[in-house]
Every structure is written in C-alpha cells, then in structure tokens.
C-alpha cells in the first residue's frame, strides 16, 4: 500500500514537473527571430530567392500571376521569386504567428486595414525608396497609394484597385422606360418599378460579412457619412447621415431576395446574371462573366456611379490591394526592387492585373494609358464601363482612411460591425437610430 502511494507521489511529481517545464518553455507568442519574414539569406548558387504570398485563390488569378512571375524568373538568372497562394482567412489567424516564427514571406499581399494590423508585429519595412523610383516612372494614382502612406512612410505599394458602382440590366430599364438612377430618390423609384413577381428590383448582401460592410459603406459615403473613424481613433459613426444610409439600405432590402441576409459577394451577382435581379452594387467582377452567365449581349449590362443622397456626396468604396515588404535582408530588398521594376512595366503589369479584367483596375498612370491594358479582350469589349469605373475610383474612399489613417480600423472591419449593425435592424427589429447607436457602442468597445 505504502509502495503504491510512493509510486503515485513520484508519478504525480514527475507530471507536475513536466507541466511546469512545458509552461515555462511555452514562452510568449512573439517568439522567433526579429527579422520577421526573412529567415535566411537564401542565396543559393548566386540566386536570391524571394518568397511572395498572395491571397488571390481563384485559379485564373493564380495561373496569371505565376505566368508573369515565371517570365520574370526566366529573364533574371540571379533572382527567383517564389509565389505561394494563401487564403485571406489564414491571413488573420495564421500569418502573424508564422511571421513571428520566422516562417513568413519576403513579400506579402495586403489591404490597407490589414497593413495596420501587421504593422503591430514590427516587421513591415518602409518602401519609400522603391515607391519614389516607381512613382517617378509610372505615377501611382493618389487614391491607391494614400492608404499606405502614413507616419511619413510608404508601407506598401498598391498593385491593383477595386471600386464599387451601380450595375443594372439596361434591357430591363428600357422596358420600364427608365434612365439609370443618379440620386437615391431615382434609385428607390427604379428599384420599385423594376420589382415584379418574377424579378427583384435589386440584389444586396445583408449577411455579417465584408461584402455587406462594403456596400453599406458606399451608401454611407453617398449619404455624407464617410468619416467613421479619424486618425486619432475617435468614432463618429452615430450621426444622422449614417442613420439615413441604414434606413435606405433597409428599404431597398424589401426589394432584394428574401434570403439576402445570407448573401455575400457571389449571390447578388448570380441573381443579377440570372435575371432574377435588375440591379446590384458591386465591383468590376460583373463584366467578364456577364454574357456567358446571363445569355444576354454585352449591351444589356450597364454601370453608373453610385446614386447620391440629397445633401450627400459622390463616391463609393474604393481600395487598392498592395504588397508589403517584410524582409530586412538588403540583398533581397535589392532583388525585390528589380522585381517591382519589372512588374510595373506597363506590358507586364497589364498582363498581371488582367488576371481579373475589369475587377482589378490599374493603379499607375502609365498602365491606364498603355495599349497593353486596353487591348485585353474583356477590357476592350467593355471599355466604356471600365472607364466609368476608373472615373468612380477618383472619388473612392475607404473607411478608416478618410480622415487621417486610423490604426484601429481593423478592429471595426474584422468583426464586420457595419454589417452587424444592419443585422440588428433586419433580424433583431431595432430601428435605424437604435442600430446605429448600438454600432457606435460596438465600435468604441472594439477599439478600447
């Protein structure tokens, strides 16, 4: 009996010791080298390797990106850029740990708010020199580069832009004798007129998602409520113009399919292309598949800037995807500069961004003027629509980047508080005023 007790005590002591050792060794979550994305010189046989992570998963994007990078590698014996496809979900949950552990990339695709989050890790490298040189040669558009420039530093280079607009079926509008709406009143009237037993006037996303956040924000811009949070992280969400935007959105949802609160990006487009919805508010991804998916000629697809509310302003959500540099290795930085010189050359750049013609808009003036960009089959077919999108992009805005750069905007966009606020109206029965007040409280709590 005593022997058994001794053995139990010994075993318990051993296990306790082991747990303590494990807990002691577990350390903090910021381990790894200080280099961030750079884990070695990676120079084998005089070849400098540069890893690039992007989160553009659709096969045609992967294929086109690989193609351009492969061409670069073939033309540069001393540099090898290695693209790796990742997912946006992992970008938030997995990348930071990987980066801290020294397993991150040298170049990482980003978004303006994601850049502010990754900056907290202290691994994002200034790109001013590369920016100056490229800007002189190609001229970055202001709306594309601004969200990446703060603290007197350029933290990422924009690679392509995306902007929202109002898409409509021109044939449906013609049947009803309507013109494309320019104001909210005209939009409401058009949606009501186009809503029939077999067709919805419009298809809008209303789930708790980034897709809903973005369309809602376009309504907020045109209502005059684009400044949600300023550079000092003061929240200014609860204002009459925001309430007006939410009321309008909820009103339009009456004419959207009844399962709109499960919609993200794909569903409104599917409803639009199948003829079940006459209008939708989204980015340029509507161009390329329209003819094939709708069975209608290209002329039946129309696009105009987002209609504006009385007292509001022109504009819609616009943001550019960018590329951050995480490596501190000078040799790699030099290789990256060479890679960017190649990538932003109009011919190569056009090939790169036309992985999604119409959706990925150029962010350099040289590309906007280049034949290489406009000669793409889809872009040339929908030239008028693409030029409309480019014009809209000039008035584009992104929440968190309209009144200074908010370092906490990721805390608002991550949990989709804009969309969640709408959810309080359509699922929990709050009025627009109550919901917006609720949203303000959520935002304040999120950035605390």
């Amino acid at each position, binding site marked *: 009996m005593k022997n058994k007790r001794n053995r139990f005590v010994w075993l318990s002591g051993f296990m306790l010791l082991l747990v303590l050792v*494990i807990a002691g060794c577990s350390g903090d979550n910021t381990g790894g080298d200080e280099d961030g994305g750079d884990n070695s010189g990676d120079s084998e046989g005089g070849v400098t390797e540069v890893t690039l992570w992007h989160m553009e998963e659709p096969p045609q994007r992967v294929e086109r990106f690989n193609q351009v990078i492969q061409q670069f590698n073939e033309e540069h014996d001393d540099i090898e850029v290695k693209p790796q496809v990742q997912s946006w979900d992992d970008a938030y949950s997995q990348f930071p740990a990987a980066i801290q552990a020294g397993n991150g990339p040298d170049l990482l695709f980003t978004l303006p708010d994601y850049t502010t989050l990754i900056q907290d890790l202290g691994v994002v490298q200034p790109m001013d020199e590369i920016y100056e040189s490229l800007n002189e040669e190609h001229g970055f558009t202001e709306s594309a580069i601004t969200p990446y420039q703060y603290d007197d530093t350029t933290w990422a280079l924009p690679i392509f832009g995306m902007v929202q607009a109002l898409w409509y079926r021109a044939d449906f509008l013609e049947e009803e004798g309507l013109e494309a709406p320019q104001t909210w009143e005209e939009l409401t009237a058009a949606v009501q007129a186009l809503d029939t037993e077999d067709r919805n006037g419009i298809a809008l996303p209303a789930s*708790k998602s980034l897709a809903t956040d973005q369309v809602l924000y376009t309504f907020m811009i045109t209502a005059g409520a684009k400044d949600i949070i300023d550079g000092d992280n003061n929240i200014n969400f609860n204002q009459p113009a925001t309430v007006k935007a939410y009321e309008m959105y909820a009103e339009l949802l009456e004419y959207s399919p009844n399962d709109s609160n499960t919609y993200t990006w794909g569903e409104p487009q599917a409803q639009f292309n199948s003829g079940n919805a006459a209008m939708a508010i989204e980015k340029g991804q509507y161009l390329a598949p329209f003819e094939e998916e709708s069975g209608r000629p290209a002329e039946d697809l129309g696009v105009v800037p987002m209609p504006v509310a009385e007292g509001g302003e022109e504009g819609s959500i616009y943001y550019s995807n960018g590329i951050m540099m995480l490596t501190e290795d000078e040799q790699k930085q030099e290789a990256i500069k060479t890679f960017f010189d190649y990538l932003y050359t109009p011919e190569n750049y056009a090939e790169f961004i036309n992985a999604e013609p119409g959706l990925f808009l150029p962010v350099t003036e040289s590309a906007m003027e280049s034949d290489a960009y406009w000669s793409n089959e889809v872009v040339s077919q929908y030239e008028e629509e693409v030029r409309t999108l480019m014009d809209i992009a000039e008035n584009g805005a992104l929440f968190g980047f309209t009144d200074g750069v908010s370092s906490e905007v990721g805390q608002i966009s*991550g949990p989709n508080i804009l969309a969640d606020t709408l959810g*309080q109206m359509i699922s929990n029965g709050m009025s627009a005023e109550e919901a917006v007040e609720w949203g303000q409280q959520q935002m304040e709590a999120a950035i605390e």
Partner: protein
Amino acid sequence: MVAKQTRVRKKKNRIRKAMPYLLVGPLVIWILLTVFLPLSSVIRESFYSTGFVGTQGDFVGFENYMNVFGSAAYWGAWQKSLLWVVGNMVVQTILAFSVALLLNNNRKISQMARTWMIIPWVIPTIVVAIFWQWILNGSYGVLNDVLLSLNIIGEPLNLLGDSTWSLFVIIFINSWHWFPFLAVILLAGLSGIPKELYEASAMDGANKWQEFWKITLPSLQHTTFALGLVGTLWMFNIFDLIHSLTEGGPAGTTTTVPVLIYQEAFESYNLGNASAMSVVTALFLIMFAVLFVRFAAPKD
C-alpha cells in the same frame, strides 16, 4: 555465484518494474505536450491584453476575466449553447433509440439498414453543411421548390437566415449528422441484453412499453451514461458545422460559445479575452463532467 544471481535477479526485477512506465511514458509525454502546452499557452494569454494573434500584449491580471463575467455576449452565447446541447441531445436520443430498437433484430433488411444508416455520420461535416445549404437555400433550394410547387408556401422560406428558426434548423441538421453514431452504440448495447429477460417478462404479461422501461433502458444504463457525458461535451464543442452554415448569424442568433470564442480571437482580434473565455468555459465543462459522474453514474 549466488551474489551474481541475486544481482541479475534484481536487475530483471528493476526492468520488469520499469517496463510499464517505459511503455506508457512516451504516450504520457506526448499527451502532456499536446494538451498541456496549448493549455498553458491559453492560460497565460488570458492574463495578457494580447489583441491580434502573434502580437505581445501587456500583463493585465484578471481584467480579461472581469470582461468575460461582465460580457452580455458571453452569457448570451451560453444560453444558445445550452439550447443547442439540449436540443441535440433530445433529437438525437429520440432518433437513435427509435432506429436502434427498429433494427435490433436479425431480419435481412435490418442488417442492410445498419450499414446504410451510418452514411450521414460518415459524410464529412463540410459536405453536410454544403448540401444542407443547397437544400435550404432561400432562392434555389430544393425544399422551397417542393413546397412552392405543392402550394404549401406562398414565398420561399429563408430558414438559415431566419432569426427565429435558424438555431433549430442547425440543431436538426447536426442531429441528422450525428444520430447514427449514437444508434450504433445503442444497437451494440441492445444486442448485449439477454433474450431470456424479455421471454421471462412476456411470460409475466409485460407489454412492449413495460419491457422498454423495465428491461431495455436499465440494461443500457452504462451505455447511456457514457453517451450522456461524452455526447454533451462533444455537442457543446461543435464549431465547424455552425460556422459553415451560419457563421453565428443571423445577428448572433446561432453564436454558441465556441463560435463566440473564435470570433473574439480571429475577427475581433482580442486573443486575451478569447483565452479567458476559453478558460472559464473549460472550467464550467469540467464542473459539469464531475457533477455528471458524481450524480448520474450507474449505481452498480
């Protein structure tokens, strides 16, 4: 010579005594590494103000725990989790018992059905989520198509997006996915009940209902106890199906505790709070397990 033999015998004895520890040791170390390493990390983070995964927060003592205990969202999620667990247990128990009793015979069709029955359980969760989304889709779903064509409904139902029905709908889907597992276990338990008991009760004039309550159920008490304990904890911790079907929506009506913890960590970038929520939740679950074992364990 004798001394040498004694030494050899002692050595063999030592090896014999050490052998169980040597065999079990690696497994114990592996379990400690895979359980206690993450656990210690979560406990540690619960005392820090860590936001984004990978960043370093400041030590904040019990502040995260105070936040959790004062969080309406956390206790709201507990309400939904309790409803989720109870709903699942009730629906699955009814389905599993019904099927197990129905198939507890040697008829050929029952033998075939035992194999086919497990199909919902074998299907990967993500596939279950996708095809139920298709069935229930508010615009193109098969269910709406059938109900509309039969004039049972006037306009399509949006069951997964309905704040009143969504939780019940996903309880049904999850129960459909899991009940075969319970049914298989119950069938195994049923096959172990001596037939003589039923024959004797029939001689005494017992009807089927009395047989079930007086013989079948008591004979399965060890099985139902194990299923009650493991099943409750299992159901409570289900995250994948809920997240795939509704992501906790609409407007948080299906946000159970695991979904909330995920959202807190990876969408609100509040790892410290999420860790404190995890620790508090784990403690509640351990308390439940201890009480369940203490009060619900079979007496014999």
